[in-house]
């Protein structure tokens, strides 16, 4: 088994205490939720400056799912397994619940939290490796090195954002609440991310993600698709979500796509409705949009698998997601 560098494990029993601990530690502490991303990364020694972890286990403030004034609010500490079958979610946002159910594997979903999934570190085949392996490679921008192996000569890390939940949630215009001892701020989820794979979150080191807000809008539909080699466990190699808002007459008001696993930041296409000549989503419109996304997205050799094939897959999955929007019964599906 791989061993992480020894670290301290801190627990606290109130949110306030947690925020103070975060504030005091000046970045040397990492938040530990389910640990399914943090612990492998610590074992790979990706965070040499981390001397301690702060467990969120005992913070009831981070749990709960509730509906308030056309908004669904989810605590960041909720586990993906619970969310994927949560009655409130299944009733109001079935495609979102199903999206949660496609993440990783049943065992991992039993541990993994939604907050952790949104804060998941970026991934790259040159970084998610042991310390020995990375040293043999000579390091890279994201770990004691000054080069990028994905974009030779590049000065910006383009490690891939590989979370599934965020893709669907951004499409739904979700917002997140960030807390620190200084107070609280609420930002659109999409603004949590920036395009630097070595530091892809706009979250401050003393901040904690506490809640997720999802607007509930009638006439809104979501479809999520992902492709990974295996039907369980694997991180997505292609993922995307499409959302459509239609009026009572069936005219498309808004069509949005969000694409993940490209670089450090999910890519948002907010005005796809403009591409629909007929104003409705028909077969021709679906092809146009799928082609458009195909042209606008360039998967990189940052995660395993041939980028050219991933690009092809993106078109197919976009087509299939858009077709799913035409169906009444919305469920997000994995691959074929």
């Amino acid at each position: 088994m791989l061993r992480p560098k020894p670290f301290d494990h801190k627990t606290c029993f109130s949110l306030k205490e947690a925020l103070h601990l975060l504030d005091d530690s000046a970045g040397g502490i990492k938040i530990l939720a389910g640990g399914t991303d943090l612990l492998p990364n610590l074992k790979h020694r990706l965070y040499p400056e981390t001397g301690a972890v702060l467990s969120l286990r005992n913070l009831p403030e981070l749990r709960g799912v509730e509906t308030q004034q056309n908004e669904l609010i989810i605590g960041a500490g909720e586990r993906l397994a619970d969310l994927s079958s949560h009655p409130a979610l299944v009733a109001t946002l079935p495609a979102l619940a199903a999206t949660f159910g496609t993440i990783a594997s049943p065992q991992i979903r039993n541990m993994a939290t939604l907050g952790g999934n949104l804060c998941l570190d970026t991934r790259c085949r040159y970084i998610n490796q042991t310390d020995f392996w990375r040293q043999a490679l000579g390091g890279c921008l994201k770990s004691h090195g000054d080069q990028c192996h994905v974009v030779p000569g590049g000065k910006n890390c383009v490690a891939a954002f590989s979370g599934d939940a965020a893709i669907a949630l951004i499409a739904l215009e979700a917002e997140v609440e960030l807390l620190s001892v200084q107070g609280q701020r609420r930002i659109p989820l999409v603004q949590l991310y920036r395009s630097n794979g070595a530091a892809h979150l706009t979250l401050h080191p003393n901040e904690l993600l506490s809640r997720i807000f999802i607007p509930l809008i009638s006439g809104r539909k979501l479809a999520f698709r992902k492709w990974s080699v295996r039907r369980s466990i694997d991180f997505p190699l292609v993922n995307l979500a499409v959302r459509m808002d239609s009026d009572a007459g069936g005219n498309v008001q808004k069509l949005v796509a969000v694409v993940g696993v490209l670089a450090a930041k999910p890519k948002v296409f907010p005005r796809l409705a403009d591409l629909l000549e007929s104003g409705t989503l028909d077969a021709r419109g679906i092809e146009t949009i799928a082609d458009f996304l195909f042209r606008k997205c360039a998967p990189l050799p940052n995660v395993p698998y041939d980028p050219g094939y991933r690009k092809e897959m993106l078109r197919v999955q976009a087509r299939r997601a858009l077709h799913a929007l035409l169906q009444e019964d919305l469920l997000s599906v994995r691959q074929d």
Partner: protein
Amino acid sequence: MADAQNTRDRHDVVGSRHRRVDGLARLTGEARYTDDIFLPRMAIGKILRSPHAHARIIAIDTSAAENLPGVFAVITGKDMPLPYGIIPWTQDEHALALEKVRYIGDAVAAVAAVDEDTALQALELIEVEYEILPAYLTPESALATGAVKIHEKNKKGNISKHVLLEFGAVNENMRQADLVIEGDYFFQGTTHAAIEPHCAVAEFDSAGHLTVWSATQVPHYLHRELARVLGLPQENIRVIQPNLGGAFGGKSEPFDLEFCVAKLAQKCGRPVKILYTREEVFYAHRGRHPMQMHYETGFDKNGRILAVDTHTILDGGAYSSFGLVTTYYSGQLLTAPYAFASYRFDSTRVFTNKPACGPKRGHGSVQPRFAIEIQLDKAAHALGIDPIELRRRNALPAHTRTVNDLHIRSNGFLECLDRVEQASGWKERYGKLPFGHGLGVAGSTYISGTNYPIYPNDMPQSGVKITIDRSGRVTLYSGASDIGQGSNTMLAVIAAQELGLEVADITVISADTALTPVDLGAYSSRITLMAGTACLQAAKELAAKIRSSVAKKWGCAPENLTLIQHSVRALDDPDRRMPVIEAFALAEAEFGTLCTTGYFETITEGVHGDYRGATIGASPAYSFTAHVAEVRVDAETGLVRVEKIWAAHDCGKALSPVSVEGQIEGSVYMGAAEAVMEEHTTMENGLLAAPSLLDYRIPTALDTPEIEAMIVQSEDPMGPYGAKEAGEGPLHPAIPAIANAIFDAVGVRIDMLPITPEKILAALRVKEAEEKSTVRD
């Protein structure tokens, strides 16, 4: 008499569906594996590995590591300068590199410390100065003129082994053939991915005797190599193989950690344990050789095989390992189940700066099987003959000799073909399914044990000792390694059958060089035939003693008695019976302490021809298999879903049908994985692309096809009760059957493994373009 015989059949242990001897212990977590061993004062060892694919070691400074508090010992190559290697003629490995490192991950130094963290810290303090040499990551680059020799002492550049053998008039037959199919195939390297990583523990006692516990499938060979490399008398070494969590060929030779724990233990005067990380398991490798195969096959118009001519390059990695044998196997094992009128193979194994390749389930013959079975499929299409029919026409009979003079006795291949043909609905469905949905067939053969020991000697290859104590419990001692395949259960089944007991009445003590008679190990699917024969002999002798004592008492002929259901019974009088425990007591009173031995001796008569190389590939008996695979291909994404595989396997006689079915299922799983998923590859600089079970993808339950395992029993005269192997053969046809089914589904051939969706998409595009251009013409 007939009645008694019927009772006998109904209560046969052989062939019954029973539990494994270790089933519950493994299920409940009670079974102890090597890493479960914790000895008082035990130190933890760690190995420093090379970050360079090819380099000369200029200097190693271990002083800082030695001075770190908590470090007990540090060793380097100089501590164990003798080379070792599983094949006596190609010993080119050192426990720790002496002068050179030959792949990323090659062992350079080792430490023992109070705990793992300290050991890891000590590794960081070891300074190694390297002179970097050019790294050769492909056979082509290693063979290029001017390439540095990876092994200086090797005679022919970077050629590890070359074999050229010819049987019959290949050129002439090829000229006369009505159809010649020519194809280039590539089999990507794959690894075993056993769930238990390699682990070893060593301890010296006060008399200087060494005990090594190791997750190995070859305790006997390890015993010999430890003695040689450490310079200790063999009688002062004991090797114990605890429960094993899978091996598949990945633990069938000595590894660096086994020598390192022993040397470190000697140096620091404490027991030492080393457990590989998953990454180290990938470096240790010994998995399937990548093979480039150029095949030419000539057929007459009826589909009979006139000539087979093959050229194969094996990418061997950094060391010889079993490579000499693999090179022979890549050709020698191709000559059944089909009759070749003439045959030539030309195989070359090349050293490269990558983890060494070796034996993986179906050693050396899974790759050529992939090529030939696709060749046959191509011929069937070209000739308009059903692919199963084409195979039938070429099938060898029982009791025959192959073109390369292997002696085949029992042969259930035709029945295997019949079974999969029927079960899959082949006749109604093949060639008639809609686009995207297809069936494919393939056949194969495999050895039930390599005929000769790895080091030449005239002693038995396997010994078994059986004792009975006064409680009636039977204890069976065998050197054979149960690696999860169930060999301990197999031995218990045979003893129980002969002694009228149940499997649960037998205690099996195995793979402990101090307690058990020698068995050469779990490789080449040899144990059921060889250890099983030894066991049957010992059990029969014991049963004879018991029958004779009871016969004496009853005043009847011993032949008239049978041992069954915990009793001795008279065959002609079912009511006449004696509890077996009384019978044991009678026999002990007459013969003294009850203990018999049995052994399996090398069969030297009539097994093979007498040309150079004839012995490699020869076996006392051969198993046969046929598969039909059903696939669905999504032409838009190129994704293949292997829906179902029907696998019929001729294992001679299923001593434990549940175990045989398990072996068939496990083999099919592994083959299907190699067909569409697995690849053990390196990046440009020689680093492994996927040294973890996240990136090296083995199928999850959701990715696994439905498997229907069917047992065919041809009863071979050489095997115990007619039994042959079941552990490796059933893997072979899965891969070509899937490839052939993909062709049936979408009309494209993918001859390069693994069959990934992008290869299918690319092939479909080419096909589409071709069809368009023919329409235009």
